């Protein structure tokens, strides 16, 4: 280890911590991929303009107090293609995604709104099917869709159907949850196999000439969170649902929010054989592939066994596992002990996951 390398690494560290700036003249697809470009866009454009403590926390849902009530509020847009895929469709995805953002904030999801941008020519039968699955998902999650809006745009301006949902939940627990509360020694848990949703949609798109028996994991996490907090609420520092950008992105957010290093054991991370196989073929790391029904929880070590047992007892958490720990090193990085026995860092993704070509 040369002094020169140390200096280079320090220089990079300073650059990383510098204020982000969007350098591109126009948005590219990378700005929507959930990785570094998205982070830069959010921080440099939106936080700059909206600047308030609730937003600046950049949690899955904003923690609010209004009229004496402790609330959580969030919104999300859905543009998935294809609209229907094995295990779900854009409708239940739009409900579960917003429900989960509230649930992992430690709030009980209550009310949702839904905005639809519909393309001229969309079969009414498709819309009916999408809306029916939203209704079913809402009932399953114990929420009501109480407000809505529809707009129809000319053919070619939306890919069939885009949905935006927003949701309000009640923070019933007296204390706040947040991954910024992670402390050295805490353990990191994931509630089930990762990457199911992203890989399913990628394959369902049909561009790859690849067949695999995959299903999206889209599901409401409300019940799982209830059980987890009942069993180990005192020890749960914070939770995140691992959607766009996958578990790797969540782990980086934890490291950054808490000013720590997250050390992960690759062989402990549950991945279904079909997902791992497809990811291997495409040269994609499952750690970056989206889930829609999995949470990552940071738990104090003395409560980890109870937390894991509670997750295991729930149908959505039967393959839950401890995948890593929080280390005091202030590097704000994620270190992966690879299955092979080496060590590397796991950074935020740049652009979309791109398959290697040789």
């Amino acid at each position, binding site marked *: 280890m040369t002094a020169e390398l140390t200096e*280079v690494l320090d220089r990079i560290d300073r650059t990383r911590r510098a204020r982000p700036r969007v350098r591109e003249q126009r948005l590219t697809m990378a700005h929507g991929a959930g990785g570094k470009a998205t982070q830069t866009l959010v921080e440099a454009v939106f936080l700059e303009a909206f600047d308030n403590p609730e937003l600046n926390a950049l949690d899955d849902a904003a923690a609010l107090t209004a009229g004496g009530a402790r609330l959580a509020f969030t919104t999300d847009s859905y543009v998935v293609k294809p609209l229907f895929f094995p295990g779900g469709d854009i409708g239940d995805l739009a409900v579960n995604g917003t429900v989960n953002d509230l649930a992992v904030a430690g709030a009980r999801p209550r009310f949702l709104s839904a905005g639809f941008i519909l393309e001229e020519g969309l079969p009414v039968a498709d819309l009916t099917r999408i809306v029916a699955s939203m209704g079913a998902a809402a009932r399953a999650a114990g929420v009501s869709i109480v407000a809505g809006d529809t707009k129809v745009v000319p053919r070619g301006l939306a890919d069939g159907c885009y949905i935006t949902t927003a949701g309000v939940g009640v923070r019933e627990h007296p204390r706040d949850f947040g991954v910024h509360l992670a402390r050295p020694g805490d353990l990191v848990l994931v509630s089930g196999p990762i990457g199911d949703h992203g890989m399913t949609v990628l394959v369902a798109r049909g*561009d*790859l000439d690849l067949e695999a028996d995959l299903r999206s994991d889209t599901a409401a996490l409300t019940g799982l969170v209830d059980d987890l907090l009942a069993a180990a609420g005192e020890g749960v520092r914070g939770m995140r649902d691992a959607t766009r950008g996958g578990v790797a992105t969540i782990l980086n957010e934890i490291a950054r929010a808490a000013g720590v290093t997250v*050390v992960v054991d690759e062989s402990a991370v549950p991945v279904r054989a079909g997902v791992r196989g497809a990811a291997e073929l495409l040269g994609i790391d499952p750690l970056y592939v989206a889930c829609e029904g999995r949470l990552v929880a940071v738990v104090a070590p003395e409560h980890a066994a109870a937390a894991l047992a509670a997750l295991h007892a729930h149908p959505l958490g039967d393959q839950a596992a401890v995948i890593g720990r929080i280390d005091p090193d202030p590097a704000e990085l994620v270190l992966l*002990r690879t*299955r*092979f026995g080496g060590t590397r860092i796991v950074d935020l993704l740049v652009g979309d996951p791109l*398959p290697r*070509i040789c």
Partner: protein
Amino acid sequence: MRFVDEFRNAEQARALAARIAARCEPGRHYKFMEVCGGHTHTIYQHGLEDYLPESVELVHGPGCPVCVIPMGRVDDAIAIARRPEVILTSFGDMMRVPGGDGSFLDAKAAGADIRMVYSPLDALKLARAHPDREVVFMAIGFETTAPSTAVTVRRAAAEGLANFSVFCNHVTIIPAIKAILDSPDQRLDGFLGPGHVSTVIGCEPYRFIAERYGKPLVVAGFEPLDILHSIDMLLAQLEQGRCEIENQYSRVVPWDGNLTALKTLADVLELRPFFEWRGLGFIAHSALKLTERYAAFDAERRFAVPGVRVADPKSCQCGEVLKGVLKPYECKVFGTACTPETPIGTCMVSPEGACAAYYNFGRFHRQRLLEVTAR
């Protein structure tokens, strides 16, 4: 997972690491170049250097298809893509490679129809589906990917698909290795030979490396155990005073290569008199273009391309990195002005580029890493 986990077994890695350490002569430093970007990626992805003694240094070579594309060729491709009738198709790795005036991703955002494909045959599908458009495939890569381009062109010819063409940037590996061997500031002890290129060209073309330059080469597979095994084979040669071309990747690479693929290549593609390599400059007989027989499918003949040579940015030291003269972090702009989000040089773009691999996977203080993992 079968056929994967066997080659990533930590126990076998420890056994190989012990053998490697035992073969190293005390006080001697070994410098091996892995020619192929796929190796570089494997080394970092699995944290393989953790298994190597300090005295064994891996130097990253030029075998990264995206890394060697000069800026001028990116500009040429974008000029083609800007034509309203054109759909330019490209492998995903090319999308962020900077040209003189932005990347494919920027050109796409500004309105050009550029689409990512996984195979040249996908581009052919697009051509069939859009008879009113001109579909151009941006062909890149070494002998590994060139045969699939050749097969695609043949198929287009057989179908009489007049709206399909190839912007050919295929390069060949041997001249690049020769350029590195001839470089005065390079002192290597041996090579990990490119596995997938060798499935096509075989092992014979490397013979001059051992015979004329006195360096051993072991054709290596892409799983981490393959690489450790190949390093062990190189050290064994040095230990025993041998200097040979050996094939570690024999489960995939036949010694004589793939004769059918070579025949197809010779029918569709031929050597250009010279070609510019990013950072390495012009190298004679180092790249391929379409033969006369298939000239109708050559995008360079179908569309006027500017063909302007664009000098690399002054601060960029990709050439030195590609030759293995500089470690990625020794480049002046590494990780500050040049990052995977805002690459100046190509080595920072492809996941197989040495700089991107080092930045994304290896950017951590070694001492601190040991402390953290020991806790």
